[in-house]
């Protein structure tokens, strides 16, 4: 599996660290305990398209949001997490 890093180009997956579901949103600091339990522990774990965080530790050190099919490992999109955070690209699909 190779990820097409927006900064570095296609790189082997061994250069990256995985950090799981990218669609989770941290609750407000004063949110109720069940909201925090959901955020920390519960996952959709889809068989299909999954938006997930990868960190390019052996490259540009960027956090990436990768859209990948968990059934086939096909990758539809790789974007810098910072761009998504600034421009809200997560709502536009891939």
């Amino acid at each position, binding site marked *: 599996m190779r990820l097409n890093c927006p900064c570095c180009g296609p790189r082997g997956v061994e250069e990256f660290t995985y950090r799981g579901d990218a669609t989770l949103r941290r609750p407000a600091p004063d949110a109720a305990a069940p909201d925090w339990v*959901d955020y*920390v522990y*519960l996952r*959709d774990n889809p068989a299909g398209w999954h938006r*997930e965080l990868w960190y390019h530790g052996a490259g540009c050190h960027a956090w990436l949001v990768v859209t990948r099919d968990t059934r086939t490992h096909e990758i539809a999109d790789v974007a810098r997490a910072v761009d998504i955070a600034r421009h809200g690209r997560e709502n536009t699909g891939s």
Partner: protein
Amino acid sequence: MKNDRYSIFSLLRETLRGQTGWKPAWRDATPQPSYDVVIVGGGGHGLATAYYLARRYGVRRVAVVEKGWIGNGNIGRNTTIIRSNYLLPGNVPFYECSMKLWEGLEQDINYNAMVSQRGVLNLFHNDAQRNAYIRRGNAMRLHGVDAQLLDVDAVRRRLPFLNYDAARFPIRGGLLQKRGGTVRHDAVAWGYARAADRLGVDIIQNCEATGLRMREGRVVGVETTRGFIGAGRVGLSCAGNSSRVAAMAGLRLPIESHVLQAFVSEGLKPFIDCVVTFGAGHFYISQSDKGGLVFGGDIDGYNSYAQRGNMPVIEDVCEGGMALMPRIGRVRLLRHWAGLMDMTMDGSPIIDRTPVGNLYLNAGWCYGGFKATPASGLCFAHLIARDEPHPVAAAYRLDRFGRGAVIDEKGMGAQPNLH
């Protein structure tokens, strides 16, 4: 059916008859309209659950629905290791219960599962690891489990060919559980299937659950590719597909599905007489009775339902193997595969009721489900039959994450790919 019991006499009879009288080990059942209990998932845990429901809890109208065929999932593709060398109080009694069930399994189910208590040896390479294994061994012995600390000379006598004096990871000794070992994995599936079938359990293959029918907050049956099957109670035992099946009941689980690879080499003369694990990386190896080296390492580390892994982990496993026992460097790989692991947020399993009435969950076995098969089946059967947890599985609750009562052997926190 009683005459189908396997014994020296049935073997002699079939020898004289030219092996023409053997019958299928279990019926290929067609679904009945309803059952007292339907187990979704015909893997090792699901079959064991059905067997113990019928055998120990007297529930006779039981069906197991399986989307593929018996033995095609993780029960037929694992590294066959059994052990009970855990550290935490929530785990040790459960895995020791499983070990005791393994010890009596073949007599119980009248099937040769080739249970081989050849020992499991965890190597250590420095003082900190030695201390950690002393602590683990003491915890085991306090729970009545056998554990023995070996110094490097004792390890060397048993396995003279390991790489003892490597500059980076010298071997200093190991923690041995003599009662650990290996079991012929698919014989476990076949043996439980046959034993459950003899007690009247319907094993329904090629029957995929497509939905759970609910009425007033309770599950009343399972929609399948072979029609609706009514059920008084439904048990989910779906391993890597647990999240998908639980979603049919509107549940989200503290689980991610990951992919784990394992490897078998060409057959060799016997030279590894126990299970050995490398303490400085993630690598474990044993030698099957056919002579193949059976080994594995880490999960790949990302969500996957692909049953296919990637090269970096293969490289990592082989590096571990070469660091531990350089003599396997020229051994050729015979086959390699990958399976789905239902990785929980604390690395420990779940056997519990769900918020949905009459729906029970057995999931989250991470990559340690095979050794748990008998106790998982027993405890899940107990839960379904009595609607209360079995005492040795009382810690495996679904709500433990919210209560802060996680069972985290590795102390990694809520990151499934690190357990």
